């Protein structure tokens, strides 16, 4: 039953991708993309978890080996900030699509093939 925790990121990823596939609004699609990204964070953190362990910061406790895995925390931390700015870039592109084409509905955007 402990492996249930590993299935949750898989579910979040599928939900995010489903959102993009059935999206009727590009802003919604970009936000679903960040939902899919958060699945990777959850997966990383779930992998790094250690029962009855504390955070890997020794400002108020003596250094001990009984901490959760700091590697995945470091990976996730930088990824979150980066994900925010990449989402900003994609949203900026969406704003421009809205202005130039007058719509953000993927169904109404015409194909790029002439």
């Amino acid at each position, binding site marked *: 039953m402990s492996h249930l925790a590993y299935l949750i990121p898989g579910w979040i990823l599928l939900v995010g991708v489903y959102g993009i596939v059935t999206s009727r609004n590009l802003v919604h699609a970009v936000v679903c993309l960040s939902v899919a990204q958060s699945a990777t964070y959850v997966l990383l953190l779930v992998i790094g*978890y250690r029962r009855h362990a504390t955070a890997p910061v020794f400002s108020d406790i003596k250094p001990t080996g009984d901490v959760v895995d700091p590697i995945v925390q470091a990976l996730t931390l930088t990824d979150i900030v980066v994900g925010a700015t990449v989402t900003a*870039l994609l949203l900026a592109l969406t704003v421009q699509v809205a202005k130039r084409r007058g719509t953000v509905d993927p169904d109404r955007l015409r194909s790029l093939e002439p």
Partner: protein
Amino acid sequence: MSPRGRLIVFLLGGAGFAVLFVLGTVHLPDFGGTWHPYGERTVSNAVARHTPNVISSINFDQRAFDTLGEELILMASALAAVVVLRGVRAEQEETAGAHEYGPAEVFDALRITGYLLLPITLVAGVYIVAHGSLSPGGGFQGGIVLGSAIHLVYLAGDYPALARIRPIPVFESGEAVAAGAFVLLALAAAGQVTAMNAAVGAEVGCAVVLVLAKFFEQALLVRTSS
């Protein structure tokens, strides 16, 4: 493809992926297990280097090259968002009439609260950046706090004041200079955790301010007369 065709392709792919994922994750080590060899090595390295915050030690000392890459992604996306949203001036000329961003009508209580919270939040942000190697925090987190803090001015209802205190060219250059400093630190002097935190904090703060500035310009442009 029709929406139904699209959904069918996705359902087939998603079902297959779900099966593969479940079959694969069954073989993962138990949740909450104690086998994390790389993590334990980094903890002892951080303690040896007198950096109590192990995560900061990993980010700015042991795996500084990764953080360099992430920094540059941040800078690239922020500058790219600025460039992509650059058409505002032309649009202003296209639609006739004067434009301005006016201050909003808000309650006095809201305005005073915003102005009081601003210096407190800024100091908190600087604290988070400066103590990144000692306690939870660091450049990334503190930078976000700093970048968002000055927008309390906008939340207090005074967008023109916000526009005055954050000239875009200054923040663009500030971001680039901070990123350049980080490149040098990461490649030549990895391990200077405090200095790197400061560089990252400056860079992230500037990036957040820049991106929000361009989005605000797009959203709040108001035509006052025609």
